[in-house]
């Protein structure tokens, strides 16, 4: 087992969350792109023009779930992106960066709660 870490197979990084975040960023992006197509179709078929059709679309359970999944994808995507931004620009103090990262996470979790309330209240 230890011999597997030689030459090109040598592990140069430790935690591997780089690949996980990279992949998550792509997958969540595709989810949001697909949802964008749904919204675009709704717009083109005139479902956004009045309150009845707009709210009617959001009254269906499948659409609520799809919307919520898209929101969760959005928040994960934002987390990956904003974490990169903090890592790139807040370099002088590790403590300050941690504060920004934790604040971003808490804020996004809060927004997820708000999104859930908006989607299921109507």
């Amino acid at each position, binding site marked *: 087992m230890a011999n597997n870490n030689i030459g090109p197979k040598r592990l140069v990084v430790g935690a591997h969350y780089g690949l996980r975040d990279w992949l998550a960023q792509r997958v969540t992006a595709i989810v949001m*792109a697909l949802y964008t197509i749904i919204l675009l179709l709704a717009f083109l078929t005139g479902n956004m023009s009045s309150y009845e059709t*707009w709210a009617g679309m959001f009254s269906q359970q499948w659409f609520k779930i799809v919307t919520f999944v898209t929101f969760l994808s959005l928040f994960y995507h*934002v987390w990956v*992106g904003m974490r990169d931004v903090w890592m790139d620009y807040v370099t002088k103090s590790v403590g300050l960066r941690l504060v920004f990262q934790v604040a971003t996470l808490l804020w996004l979790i809060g*927004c997820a709660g708000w999104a859930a309330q908006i989607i299921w*209240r109507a």
Partner: protein
Amino acid sequence: MSEAVKKNRRQFNVMTFADTVHYRLPLAGIVSILHRISGILMFLLLPFILFLLDKSLTSEISFEYLKGFTSNLLVKLIILALSWAYLHHFCAGIRHLVMDLHIGVDKDSGRKSAVGVFAVSLPLAALVALKLFGVF
């Protein structure tokens, strides 16, 4: 001895914001930094977006309220900025996904796809602007 070496050595620090103005970014670089700026903009305006969705769905009264609210010029400009940010982020993101498939990663095609991103995102943003300001 070691002090003399230290004095002559150039110091390389993290680049400051002032350094960035000396950079002449290639088109692909402009797409890249705008990808980041548009992402940050949408992150900052997340509560505004959720507010709009909230008001649009709560009731017929709040839907009507939203119509009045979005007729404000400043609100229209914010929505336009958000629309541009979304369109640019979307197109630049698709460009990234294509490059993940090892398509168009050389310098020439990188520039061409950067042109492509602007060619799609800017006219669509202009279309949103025309719609927002009631041209059609």
